[in-house]
């Protein structure tokens, strides 16, 4: 039976994926898409969805896994947003070439130079011309319905193209709406299992995708053939939407949705969730007798050329609302496309309204003002920016207002969770390093909690995958300017920016032995996006993407051993630390400082960061948990100085790991057998460290 529920856009998407019986889900969390990955993990953990879930180490790999799975014959879903979409760009471009019918949901969020979590279309616009079918949806119900249709459209042998479903981040992804969820049987009849004609499978097929580039002469012809596919796709879209309407009773108008457009003299063109407010503006104006109308572009690629010409033929003035700018042209991308389409037809005035960037709200008043501008029919100006004044900052406490405030390198009043140990670690670090340090911050909790200005040293937000690379750049500049012995280029990264997505640039910087200080604070999951599994999550731990359900019982794999992996790069200094052992950490940071300032090479510090929010313990116990981690051997404190390993803190007898595990909610589901296994691991590892300590030098340091 179909049922109604009140749910967010992200949940509607996840429900659609479940109904579509997707088989492979490679996914990487990023705000505001995150909860899609969490809902899907939950479905699989509870046995509601039979699919392979791939916790990839970055978006680039997520799309690559998606392509691999799709061409070998699975129905695939992935989703991302913003910087993630930009990071997977290369693989996104590859997918149409493989004719891989992947469906990707994009929760739109600003990408690029000025960081923002807000919704706009700067992330998706660079991806629209790569050969994907691109949809924009207006509501959560439409997101679910479109997702189911998209699998039919993408997998149709006349189309066979990847497709992208855009829904506005926050406006839809986190807003609750009433959504009708169709029943599984009806969806199964509408959307049968995916049976590709040419799967890469040596057991059933002798036809394989051509991975070699054709000679250059063929490429123009190939490109034109893709345009034929898009032409066919337009027909298929209508066909499948009609079929969907007959089964489920809902339709949205195919390529474009027209609202009060029949006799309209002034019309707006919108996409996505802003259309709802625009429709209300049209309603108000209609009551006043003003002939307003609206056309919502649902399918942006293939661009509905004929529909635009047909429906806008009688309109005098058109305003196109863009939520992104093609910088350097002073126009929005939808404006450019639409005006080019309408050029040469009947004479009409076309205006561009640029508004709502970075999640700024476009209100009904704004739309009314847009219609007012249309009614003026002023030919002197074509582009209007609907700006809101840059807000004044709320009042903050300045250093002069507290004792010794001016001298402090880290200030109070950051926005981290209560009980977070990052400021403690940061304070140890800054007290030891002094003020001549420049921090590269790949995105992590501290980037958020410090971003209000609580650090009195320079820091910048680096891209997630490139923390060590940014620091390399600053180090090389200081080196050539002969100040590298005075300034420390440091990276302060979370475990995602170290273990997973940031590993490539870290490993390369270590191999080149750049004199930078890399500090990984390890809270054993992606805490910034809301506790998702990372390469650092220990065995058995609950995270939102390794939930405890009927089938899954927390994370099923052991964590990477990052300090020892780093030692394989033969870098001069590696150490682990914990906030509870203050002097130990400070001595190690001091040694790392010497290593870097003397330009001997990369120093790597690996600091434990107990997280009350993600590990589920009381905020007051952060230091206690850290101490227990050390005393039980879960977090051994050691350093490797030019290959010589030394355990810096040896409890006379290790406490049982149960003391450490039982204090945290994320381990509460563990059985005695699993705890024994973890205990066994810890004992073995501890003994291994003691054995390695006896060596004069680790053998791989040569």
């Amino acid at each position, binding site marked *: 039976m179909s049922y109604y529920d009140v749910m967010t856009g992200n949940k509607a998407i996840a429900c659609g994926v479940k109904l579509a019986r997707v088989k492979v889900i490679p996914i990487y969390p990023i705000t505001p898409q995150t909860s899609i990955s969490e809902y899907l993990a939950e479905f699989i953990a509870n046995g509601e969805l039979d699919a392979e879930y791939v916790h990839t180490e970055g978006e680039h790999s997520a799309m690559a896994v998606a392509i691999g799975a799709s061409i070998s014959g699975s129905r695939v879903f992935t989703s991302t947003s913003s910087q993630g979409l930009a990071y997977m760009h290369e693989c996104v471009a590859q997918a149409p070439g493989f004719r891989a019918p992947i469906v990707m949901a994009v929760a739109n969020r600003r990408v690029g130079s000025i960081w923002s979590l807000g919704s706009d279309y700067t992330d998706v616009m660079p991806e629209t011309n790569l050969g994907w079918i691109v949809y924009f949806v207006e509501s959560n119900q439409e997101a679910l319905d479109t997702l189911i249709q998209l699998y039919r459209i993408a997998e149709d042998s006349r189309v066979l193209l990847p497709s992208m479903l855009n829904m506005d981040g926050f406006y839809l992804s986190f807003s609750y709406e009433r959504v009708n969820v169709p029943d599984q049987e009806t969806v199964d009849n509408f959307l049968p299992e995916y049976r590709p004609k040419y799967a890469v499978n040596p057991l059933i097929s002798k036809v394989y995708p051509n991975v070699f580039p054709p000679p250059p002469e063929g490429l123009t012809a190939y490109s034109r053939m893709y345009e034929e596919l898009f032409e066919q796709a337009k027909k298929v879209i209508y066909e499948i939407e009609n079929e969907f309407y007959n089964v489920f009773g809902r339709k949205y108008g195919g390529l474009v949705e027209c609202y009060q457009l029949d006799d309209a003299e002034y019309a707006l063109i919108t996409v996505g969730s802003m259309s709802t407010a625009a429709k209300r503006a049209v309603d108000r104006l209609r009551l006043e007798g003003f002939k307003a109308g609206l056309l919502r572009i649902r399918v942006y690629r293939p661009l509905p050329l004929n529909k635009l010409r047909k429906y806008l033929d009688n309109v005098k003035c058109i305003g196109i609302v863009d939520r992104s700018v093609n910088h350097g042209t002073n126009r929005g991308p939808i404006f450019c496309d639409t005006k080019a389409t309408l050029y040469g037809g009947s004479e009409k005035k076309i205006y561009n309204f640029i508004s709502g960037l970075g999640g700024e709200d476009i209100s009904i008043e704004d739309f009314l003002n847009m219609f007012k501008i249309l009614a003026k029919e002023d030919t002197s100006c074509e582009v209007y920016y609907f700006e809101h004044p840059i807000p004044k900052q709320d009042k903050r*406490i300045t250093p002069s207002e507290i004792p010794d405030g001016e001298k402090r390198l880290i200030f*109070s*009043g950051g926005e981290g969770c209560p*009980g977070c140990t990052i*400021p*403690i670690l940061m304070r140890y670090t800054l007290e030891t390093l002094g003020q001549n340090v420049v921090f590269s911050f790949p995105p992590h909790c501290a980037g958020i909690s410090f971003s*209000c200005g609580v650090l009195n040293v320079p820091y910048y937000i680096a891209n997630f995958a490139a923390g060590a690379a940014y620091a390399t750049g600053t180090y090389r500049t200081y080196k050539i300017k002969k100040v590298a012995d005075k300034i420390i280029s440091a990276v302060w990264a979370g475990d995602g920016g170290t273990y997973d997505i940031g590993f490539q640039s870290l490993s390369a910087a270590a191999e080149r032995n750049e004199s930078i200080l890399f500090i990984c604070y390890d809270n054993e999951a992606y805490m910034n996006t809301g506790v998702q599994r990372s390469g650092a999550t220990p065995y058995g731990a609950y995270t939102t993407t390794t939930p405890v359900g009927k089938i899954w019982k927390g994370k099923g794999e052991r964590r990477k051993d990052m300090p020892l992996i780093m030692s394989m790069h033969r870098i001069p200094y590696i150490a682990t630390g914990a906030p509870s052992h203050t002097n130990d950490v400070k001595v190690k940071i001091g040694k790392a400082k010497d290593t870097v300032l003397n330009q001997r090479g990369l120093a790597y510090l690996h600091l434990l960061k107990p997280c009350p929010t993600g590990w589920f313990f009381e905020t*007051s116990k952060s230091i206690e948990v850290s101490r227990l981690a050390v005393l039980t051997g879960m977090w051994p404190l050691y350093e490797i100085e030019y290959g010589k390993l030394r355990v810096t803190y040896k409890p006379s007898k290790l406490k049982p790991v149960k003391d450490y595990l039982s204090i945290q909610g994320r381990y509460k589901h563990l059985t005695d057998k699993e705890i024994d296994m973890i205990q066994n691991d810890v004992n073995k590892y501890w003994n291994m460290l003691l054995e390695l300590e006896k060596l004069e030098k680790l053998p791989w340091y040569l």
Partner: protein
Amino acid sequence: MAEKESKAFVLGGLNVGGWYVGDWRTQKPIIDYGKCVKCWICENFCPEIAITKSENGPQIDLRFCKGCGICANECPVKAIEMVEEFRR
């Protein structure tokens, strides 16, 4: 017309300063200065750096204290007590 320097945001948009995060608090630390032995463990482990040293003992800046309770939990002589705080 003289060219003007662009005001677009480049780097260093913020000055140093903190928010009034003290209003996140639901519990408030109360120090019993009679018991306090001035070991400064609370000062060392305060994540908000809201505790400063003074001759009388630790001083807590309640404009910043989020009430996490680490100081009370770590105090070796249990001189700090967390009490429920009600605000209008």
